[in-house]
């Protein structure tokens, strides 16, 4: 059985026609307003999708009173990290001889740019106070979990 055609919506009702693939015998599924709405509410496409659902598809297509442009196209499409400049700057500021392990660096990069420099300073201060020369993820755990930052 395959989808032959979908008619409607006509005032909320639909006729969806399926046909036997070997003999062509057709069967129509009729939906009333409520049934049509139920299927739409699942966020699925009758007859299948030819391409992946767009982000926020339901919100952008079915919400009444939505903003004219609810989502802006990015001017920097392709850039994965909007904070690379800030990160570079923070690192350029220097750890004054403090070594950061790969794991710790990755965790630092996950912190919002706004607070990252102060976090870096706090962690390095903690390491210095404790006589450490390298910051690894255990040091970050200690700062995060025990010092009440």
């Amino acid at each position, binding site marked *: 059985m395959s989808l032959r055609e979908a008619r409607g919506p006509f005032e909320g009702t639909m006729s969806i026609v399926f046909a036997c693939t070997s003999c062509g015998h057709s069967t129509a599924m009729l939906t009333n307003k*409520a049934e049509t709405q139920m299927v739409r509410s699942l966020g699925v496409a009758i007859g299948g999708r030819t391409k992946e659902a767009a982000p926020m598809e339901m919100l952008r297509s079915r*919400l009444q009173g*939505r903003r004219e442009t*609810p989502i802006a196209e990015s001017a920097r499409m392709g850039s994965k990290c909007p904070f690379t400049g800030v990160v570079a700057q923070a690192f350029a500021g220097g750890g004054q001889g403090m070594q950061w392990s790969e794991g710790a660096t990755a965790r630092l990069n996950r912190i919002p740019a*706004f607070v990252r420099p102060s976090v870096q300073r706090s962690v390095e201060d903690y390491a210095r106070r404790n006589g450490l020369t390298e910051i690894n993820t255990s040091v970050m755990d200690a700062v995060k979990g025990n010092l009440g930052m």
Partner: protein
Amino acid sequence: MKTYHDIASDGGSDVIGQVTAQRARLEDRLSLVDHVVAVMSGKGGVGKSTITFVLAEALAERAWCVGIVDADINGPSIAQMTGVRTHVPVLTPGGVMPPENREGIRVMSMDLFLAQEAAPVLWEASTQDEAYTWRPMVEMGALRELIADTEWGPLDVLLVDLPPGADRLPNLASLLPRLSGVVVVTGPTSVSQVAVERSIGMASRVARVPVIGLVENMSAYICPACGAAELLDSNVGDAEALATRHGVPFLGHVPFDRNLALAADTGEPFLERYAGSMAGRAIIDISRKVARFLTR
């Protein structure tokens, strides 16, 4: 006569495949999120969203990467509280980039899609009559999109600000099976505490989500002139006893603080200026307990 199970396919719609793809998209998105924590209450007006907002702030101050999704589809408030109400989310190849507030908290809310702040949330349909049959499904679909289609990036925690009602958590738990826990918020009145008891029962027995603890909000009034704390006349409940009775941790009392109310109204960070206030200290202590629960 053929039965449902004799039909080889659904005519090419592959509804099950589409729903499975929706779930897979959600799981993919959350694979970079260490913890998902719901903030709930059985009763409206206890300050659940305010607690979500300041808890996020306190965790961000602890260097956590924090996101908030406003699951209150019909009464969204988190965008205003975090000061991002006028921001427009940006489409990127990975999804929709959420706005960030001054403290780097990433926010996604229905409010970001509405043209007018006070407009009711309505969905296009040939009729709104008998919308009770399909509206809850659309709202869950909208929440799924708000979570799954947002490019959260790696997060230490995603806070989910639930609308009032004990039934909300089981619905969320079925959408997000790996909820790390729930913070339950109550007010000082016995009415709100009875409703919260139902919520705790729902969390532990039905949704089977760990209860991180109970917060009593608006537990006292702080005099803006002298800073003295005074119990409110309505403060007749005993939230700590309630927590003990249900075997859940009591996380703390947050007194009513007009500066907190103002911060939430204006979208200004609260802890940035008032971390040393009684409410600020209480929130920081609560965030420490939540962090400890999540990193244990």
